């Protein structure tokens, strides 16, 4: 026979104002199985908890129901108190008579009756609660970081500095990401390369970091603390151990006219190349699509000139399996290429801006390469079409961003600031030039950001025109920019020499495919979803996977670095214990009844359902049933609702308990 204790909270006046708590305690006390019931002003306070502990011991209570606020608020508090009194914490349940009752009703009589019923239901439910042992899961104290931009680099360095091994995987031949492409950074105008490249070198030299560049994630299996990651290391055609990075192969390569993606296709590179001189690792890669040796079998010059004999045309892709305990996803962003409407995308193109047709209409990243000291023009602002210095330059903000009718409704966050920076860089380099900016709003929330933007207008003489541009067209060697100045209410036409479009920040191509491999969720734009927008901003809903940088949403460098360090801290928290403890509210399969249809496996958002073979004593296979991995299960109950044979149930929420609750009404 149960000896249930019921504790009714006044919540100051929050509950007792509308619910007659004393009457609830009296009436509930008469229910079968209830051995003790009382009320108190603040059950969550120290004296309230002591009252509860004392009652458990004195009354020899077997189960506890606390009728108070939402379990989201104080379930942990009361379960801890129950545990301290020597009872299994999962024998304590909360009846929510605040949010579900006192706060939403006015009539005291009716609210009191309802409160009695709510408590009565929980009494029936708690009777059937089982003693649940805490689940422990072993932890592999190594971490995978996907993406070698500033986010991935920061996260990797932080985790490695804490003494844990890090596997850093980068898709491109070098780490560095977009930050390595930038010229100067806002709001201080310090050179991006100068602050970025030392960190890249730190990554390469760190004894705890294993770097895989030119590599991609092939497969992710397992769960928090116990992931198995398969990495595809693409054939570089150059042996990284032998190569000294001398660069002779690149000098001798006869194919020289391949547009360099790193320079936004402004500069050219050979078929064997490093994307930029400061690349880490400084090991070239052969672009097999454009290499004569791979296309026709002839040439082979780079192999002949390579002193250490590092060039290896026979090299093949390798698959490497790495066990890790946590994953940081830092795959970053790309700029919306407005030249064409991506196939199958909800995003509509921007034909009216002539990007891709008019050579001197470029995007923000291309301008960064023009302004960069290590860029294709050596830092001179020159037109791609004829190499002339543009004397009138127009910047247009919000291209793609904040344009619902064009398919993207979000703000890309960084463009206001980088455009202000561009006007300054332009003014520093072209003294007699004039910069115009078409903008909707200037969004400059950030430390020293608004001051920076003001400076671009007040000291660097940029002319800001509030309004959007309807279209651009080429007229002779000028680009006519047709726009409106809504502050004055007039049409504006500017004959510009060059136009820079602040195109929207988007997740990297293939972000959705990677998310599916990882089992993490993403929004309609393919940005990865955090577990909670405010309180869990760096964790995924999938346990053990964390987010850093612009893959989660548009972010500038300070925000990216902060989030990367936060993600690293989360990984370190996970690695601080040898075994993971987690709440045992998980689904369990009744194997005798399971028919192995795996409907539960299809709906499980956490990937917790596995297949388990049932064999007899001779080892003959009898059947295959579902098995819920308790380390992975999120306790959502979707499998329970789906199972056609009612053979999977969530502890604490079994069908028997739900029926008992309904019958108590």
């Amino acid at each position: 026979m149960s000896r249930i204790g019921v504790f009714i909270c006044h919540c100051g006046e929050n509950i007792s104002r509308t619910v007659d708590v004393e009457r609830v305690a009296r009436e509930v006390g008469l229910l079968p199985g209830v051995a003790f019931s009382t009320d108190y002003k603040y059950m969550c306070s120290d004296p309230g908890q002591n009252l509860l502990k004392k009652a458990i011991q004195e009354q020899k209570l077997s189960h506890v129901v606390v009728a108070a606020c939402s379990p989201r608020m104080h379930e942990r508090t009361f379960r801890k108190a129950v545990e301290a009194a020597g009872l299994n914490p999962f024998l304590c349940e909360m009846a929510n008579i605040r949010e579900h009752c006192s706060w939403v009703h006015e009539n005291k009589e009716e609210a009191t009756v309802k409160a009695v019923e709510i408590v009565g239901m929980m009494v029936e439910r708690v009777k059937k609660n089982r003693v649940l042992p805490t689940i422990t899961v072993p932890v592999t104290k190594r971490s995978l970081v996907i993406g070698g931009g500033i986010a991935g680099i920061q996260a990797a360095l932080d985790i490695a500095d804490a003494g844990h091994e890090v596997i850093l995987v980068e898709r491109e031949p070098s780490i560095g990401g977009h930050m390595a492409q930038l010229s100067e950074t806002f709001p201080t105008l310090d050179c991006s390369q100068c602050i970025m490249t030392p960190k890249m070198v730190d990554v390469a030299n760190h004894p705890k970091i294993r770097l895989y560049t030119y590599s991609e994630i092939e497969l992710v299996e397992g769960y928090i603390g116990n992931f198995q990651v398969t990495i595809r290391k693409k054939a570089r055609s150059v042996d990284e151990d032998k190569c000294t990075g001398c660069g002779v192969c690149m000098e001798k390569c006869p194919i020289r006219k391949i547009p360099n993606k790193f320079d936004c296709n402004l500069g050219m590179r050979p078929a064997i190349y490093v994307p930029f001189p400061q690349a880490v690792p400084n090991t070239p890669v052969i672009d097999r699509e454009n290499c004569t040796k791979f296309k026709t079998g002839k040439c082979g010059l780079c192999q002949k000139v390579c002193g250490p004999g590092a060039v290896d045309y026979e090299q093949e892709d390798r698959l490497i399996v790495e066990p890790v305990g946590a994953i940081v996803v830092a795959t970053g962003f790309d700029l919306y290429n407005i030249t064409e409407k991506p196939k199958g995308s909800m995003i509509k193109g921007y034909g009216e801006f002539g990007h891709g047709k008019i050579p001197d209409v470029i995007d923000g990243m291309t301008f960064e390469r023009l302004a960069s000291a290590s860029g294709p023009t050596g830092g001179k602002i020159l037109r791609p079409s004829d190499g002339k210095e543009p004397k009138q330059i127009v910047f247009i903000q919000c291209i793609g961003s904040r344009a619902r009718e064009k398919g993207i409704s979000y703000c890309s966050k960084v463009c206001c600031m980088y455009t202000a920076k561009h006007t300054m860089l332009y003014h520093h380099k072209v003294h007699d030039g004039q910069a115009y900016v078409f903008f909707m709003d200037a969004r400059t929330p950030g430390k020293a950001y608004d001051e920076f933007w003001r400076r671009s207008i007040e000291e660097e003489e940029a002319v800001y025109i509030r309004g959007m541009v309807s279209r651009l067209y080429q007229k002779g060697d000028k680009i006519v920019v047709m726009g409106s100045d809504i502050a004055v209410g007039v049409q504006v036409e500017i004959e510009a020499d060059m136009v820079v479009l602040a195109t929207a920040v988007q997740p990297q191509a293939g972000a959705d495919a990677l998310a599916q491999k990882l089992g993490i969720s993403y929004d309609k734009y393919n940005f990865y979803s955090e577990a909670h927008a405010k309180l869990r901003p760096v964790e995924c809903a999938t346990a053990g996977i964390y987010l850093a940088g612009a893959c989660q949403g548009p972010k500038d460098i300070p925000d990216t670095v902060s989030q990367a360090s936060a993600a690293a801290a989360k990984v370190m928290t996970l690695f601080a214990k040898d075994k993971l403890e987690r709440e045992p509210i998980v689904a369990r399969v009744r194997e005798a009844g399971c028919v192995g249809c795996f409907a539960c496996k299809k709906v499980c958002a956490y990937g917790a359902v596995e297949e388990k073979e049932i064999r007899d004593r001779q080892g003959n296979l009898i059947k295959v049933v579902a098995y819920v991995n308790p380390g992975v299960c999120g306790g959502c109950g979707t499998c329970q609702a789906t199972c056609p044979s009612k053979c999977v149930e969530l502890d604490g929420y079994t069908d028997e308990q739900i029926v008992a609750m309904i019958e108590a009404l």
Partner: protein
Amino acid sequence: MTTPLNYSYYPGCSLHASAGEYDLSTRELFKALKIGLTEVPDWFCCGATPAHNVDELLSLSLCAKNLELAEQVEGDLAVACAACFSRLKTAQHVLGESPVKRKQVEKALDAPLHLDGNVKHLLDILARDLGLERLAAAVNKPLTGLKVACYYGCLLTRPTDVTNLDCVEAPTIMERVIESAGATTVAWTHRLECCGANFTLSRPGVVIQLANAILDSAKAAGADCIMVGCPLCHGNLDIRQKEIEGVYNVEYNLPVFYLTQLVGLAVGLGPDKLGLDAMIVNPMPLLKEKNLS
């Protein structure tokens, strides 16, 4: 044997007045192409710009009544004027989306609405219903060597989800039609700019400036002539052309054809059946030069 094409026809007021040659050439072209065209009985003004500027309910009701009248004639509704096309399409769209407005208009007309019929611009009929291949097959005198600047103006393609005629930013339907007739089209910058429309009466200075930019762009692109599908655009580019030349001290001499006139020429219709004498900028020297008359 393909099914015969038959349409109800809504000429609109302009085609009975300043754009008589558009009406004439449309009827003659369709006759030559063996496309049936039956005028909507007792049609009246669509309300054009004034109605919807003053009273949306009035504008919607005028169009709804005309759509109801069009139901009496078999076939989709063929519309030549870009403004009529825009108003009728807009009325269909708005009344289809808003039950409240639909109720108001039904009350005003004291009749249930008929909104399901297709409203089609002539371009749509030529390019899609007849099809470019059949159009090309009907060409007897291809417009070889004639460089045409296709001018869309504002209303044919906008708003895109209302008119559904072609891509709003980079339409090609006019080019495709006239290239099927053997002409060469030019790539130019002001295909989609506004000509100033009915400001031609209240603020002609605005129209002169805007129309000049259009003519200038067409000339710069090497066009011999301009092709339009809107009576108001035609007025602003053709009737005002001499005046514009005077104001800006330039010489354009760009004949402005309705699309039915140019296609009609290619099909083999004579100038008298296309109303070429009604054009202010005389096209005959150009047509002679290109051996097209």
